[in-house]
């Protein structure tokens, strides 16, 4: 086996040094009834070539996004990731290191985490960010729990603009914590009244911007309404590229910003792993979940970085920790920060403008589709298309796929119990779409509708 270095002679010499007859005797503490004498009845090991063959076969059973006109978003966005990102990401010193508990031999990881935390703050307009969570949905749930901790209140209000997976994850996480979660109906038109929902029992209001259905809203008044009653405003951002063009949540009064960082650096990967972004105000730093990297000096007075404020974390505080999170998304944070470094201010701004322009062009192209209408009042790079009263968008998606087009996702995939959402199709456009893609989508829609 190519990963195992021992020869039989090595094993014999080591057993002799140990004073053991054979390897089986090292397992003597395993109750005899549970010891296996043989390998488990599953296939034997394969050569590198055979493994490649098996995966190539499975990969061939998929229609990859790059092989089709592609317009799916709904929280995971297809962007061009510069070749540099992946090439640097696979450097073994990044890829094969552990959590930087020994800072003297981990300054590389620690410095990029410090830079990552800073970039997240700059993008979101917040004061402090952690070194990552699993994904946007779990970051959102952690924010709700943190808000309850900060405010000592129990009511969590989840806007109908919030990604349904974020809603479901938050509902699950809070289930046994004595909190009361109020999940509002899906809000494709951006009409829900949130101001009237917040009261003195409210720990937080969670909204998404741009919303799950595409709409962008000014959160300033909502933030004021929350603060008036002592609640926190939590804002989820599922598409961080949008922050290159629209006002960040921090500038509108958000107290906690969570997000999904997948858009930058990572590619689609069938939705996982993701990168949970988590940022807040300085005054709440000791209530934050997750790791934090901080600046300090070494014995010689040189600037260096360490993990810090770890008395919040499980390995120190155990059942009193702010979260149980340990492993996070370090390497995804590295991909994010590399991509953002390549973009810079100039590149991110251009990328965001291009994404928006693509979506505007898509909306224009869709005017040629009979009976279809974009219902999002505003949007960044994704909007909701109403296909017509009797049209089942899920059916349309299948028919488009049969024509080799990955034409968005039906809202009913998330909301099977809402018949009025059956005609709604979510469509995203990014820099990866061509004019030909858009024309192909429009003509295919006209054929299947």
């Amino acid at each position: 086996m190519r990963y195992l270095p021992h020869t039989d002679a090595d094993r014999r010499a080591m057993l002799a040094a140990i004073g053991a007859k054979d390897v089986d005797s090292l397992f003597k503490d395993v109750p005899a009834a549970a010891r296996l004498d043989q390998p488990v009845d599953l296939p034997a090991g394969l050569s590198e070539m055979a493994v490649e063959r098996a995966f190539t076969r499975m990969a061939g059973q998929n229609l990859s996004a790059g092989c089709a006109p592609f317009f799916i978003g709904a929280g995971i966005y297809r962007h061009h990731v510069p070749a540099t990102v992946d090439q640097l990401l696979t450097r073994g010193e990044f890829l094969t290191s552990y959590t930087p508990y020994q800072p003297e031999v981990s300054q590389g990881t620690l410095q990029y985490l410090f830079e990552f935390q800073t970039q997240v703050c700059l993008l979101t307009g917040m004061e402090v960010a952690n070194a990552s969570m699993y994904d946007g949905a779990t970051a959102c749930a952690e924010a709700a729990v943190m808000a309850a901790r900060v405010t000592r209140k129990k009511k969590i209000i989840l806007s109908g603009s919030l990604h349904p997976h974020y809603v479901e994850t938050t509902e699950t996480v809070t289930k046994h914590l004595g909190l009361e979660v109020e999940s509002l109906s899906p809000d494709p038109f951006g009409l829900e009244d949130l101001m009237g929902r917040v009261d003195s029992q409210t720990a937080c209001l969670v909204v998404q911007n741009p919303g799950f259905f595409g709409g962008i809203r000014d959160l300033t008044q909502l933030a004021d309404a929350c603060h008036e009653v002592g609640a926190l405003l939590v804002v989820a951002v599922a598409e961080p590229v949008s922050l290159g063009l629209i006002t960040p949540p921090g500038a509108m009064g958000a107290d906690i910003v969570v997000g999904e960082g997948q858009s930058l650096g990572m590619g689609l990967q069938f939705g996982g792993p993701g990168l949970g972004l988590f940022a807040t105000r300085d005054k709440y730093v000791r209530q934050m979940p997750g790791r934090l990297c901080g600046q300090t000096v070494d014995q010689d007075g040189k600037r260096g970085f360490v993990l810090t404020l770890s008395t919040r974390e499980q390995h120190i505080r155990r059942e009193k920790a702010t979260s149980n999170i340990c492993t996070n998304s370090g390497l995804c944070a590295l991909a994010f920060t590399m991509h953002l470094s390549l973009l810079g201010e100039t590149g991110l701004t251009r990328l965001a403008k291009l994404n928006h322009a693509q979506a505007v062009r898509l909306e224009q192209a869709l005017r040629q589709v009979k009976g279809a209408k974009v219902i999002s009042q505003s949007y960044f790079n994704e909007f909701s298309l109403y296909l017509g009263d009797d049209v089942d968008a899920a059916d349309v998606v299948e028919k488009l796929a049969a024509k080799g087009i990955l034409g968005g996702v039906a809202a009913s995939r998330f909301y099977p119990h809402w018949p009025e959402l059956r005609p709604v199709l979510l469509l995203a456009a990014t820099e990866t779409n061509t004019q030909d893609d858009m024309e192909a989508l429009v003509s295919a829609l006209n054929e299947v509708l």
Partner: protein
Amino acid sequence: MVEITTFSGNRGLHLEEPLIFEQGCPGRVGTDIDDAGPIDEDRLGGLARKDAIGLPDLSEPQVVRHYTRLSQKNYGIDSGFYPLGSCTMKHNPRLSEKMARLPGLADLHPFQPKSTVQGALSVIDLLAHWLKGLTGMPAVAMSPAAGAHGEWCGLMAIRAYHDDHGESHRTRVLVPESAHGTNPATAAMCGYTVDPVPATDRGRVDVAALKAKLGPDVACIMVTNPNTCGLFEDEIIEIARATHEAGAFFYCDGANYNAIVGRVKVADLGVDAMHINLHKTFSTPHGGGGPGAGPTVLSEKLAAYAPLPFVVHGANGLELVEHAEQAPGAKPFGRVKGYHGQFGVFVRALAYILSMGSDGLRQASSDAVLNANYLLASLKDVLSASFDGPCMHECLFDDRFLKDTGVTTLDFAKMLIDEGFHPMTMYFPLVVHGALLMEPTETESKETLDGFIKVVRALAAKAKNSDADDFKAAPRLTPRRRLDETLAARQPVLRWKHGANAEG
């Protein structure tokens, strides 16, 4: 040693590297992006960003050099021996990386129609098949993102079962004192109270104490096996029996499952739920702290409560169940994260598993245990072994051997850094004083182990015979020496701000 100072601050291959924010020049760009072109009017609802973001502008070569230099300040498994106990720092095969990057697997969106992702669903299904086969367990929840997340998934399934069976009063969880911190933290996240169970002087769960604590309000026990002292809980079957008799479940923390893959089916131990850290046992890269994956195997009783989504075999191939009503009989406790699990990690773990095969996985566990026992046997006369062997995949020492030397476990670990090794885990588990926990893993050769043993023996002798100050000053040869953690916590500087983060 002659101290050499340089004008640049660099020391040969040790290159100083400023923060990315201290570099760049407005207007440079490291990636080409087409001009957006004209649009009639924007659809931003009046919320166009007014202020600059504040990101630095750099060219591609600058960015490449920045991250290359940062990488050179890191120690990885690829650099050398990394015996970090409890963390399983084994070789990460590059084949797994290559497979995860096949466009037919990497460039897939989670919401594509299922007919277009049958191959991806079969990756998930095949990995689940292996995990169930290896553990002997009937079901597995694939979506947890990491070990702690898997623990939480397992306990949520247990809680759902109890709520479904009129036993909601079961809210106490028994957790051995030697447990990872995630165990009690996880129990708290399920609304449970934590009741610690002491360890015996054999480094194992005090079974009598555990039995005395079992009662009608106990939801489950959380036992790590092999445990955090690197020992197999030899009374585990009796522990499971007593737990079940009391109407409670046995959650096994599978962090150390890598010691027993192919040698024990955990179903035979009476386990009801156990997470598997794919990033440890099945060798996907740790990536400086993640991502991982923590699929959680479940017993027959708990299987119905597995969270959404999950893959099932349907009439038209594989189906992905995203809503409870799509799977008759399922009572999912909810959803643990977005989308369908850590797919990129699944591909890597499956590539490793198919490479190793059933025979190779058993050999890997055997060699991991052999290597740990070899370290134990080769060091126990100079260090102080906390417990008698044999150990499993890791061996535990405490700081008695440093008594009266003035040298601490921390000092000893930092000295190893100058010798070119990553230190072992320090001060964990908490059940021994000044713990040094070493996990060599199966991918280390005898020569590597012998080299390490030689150095540790020399350092142990040095600690007894020389001035502790030498140890206190270590490491000396790293890009940075010991860092002031107190300062970092007292005056937190958690981000760069213009003009505020000057080089010391």
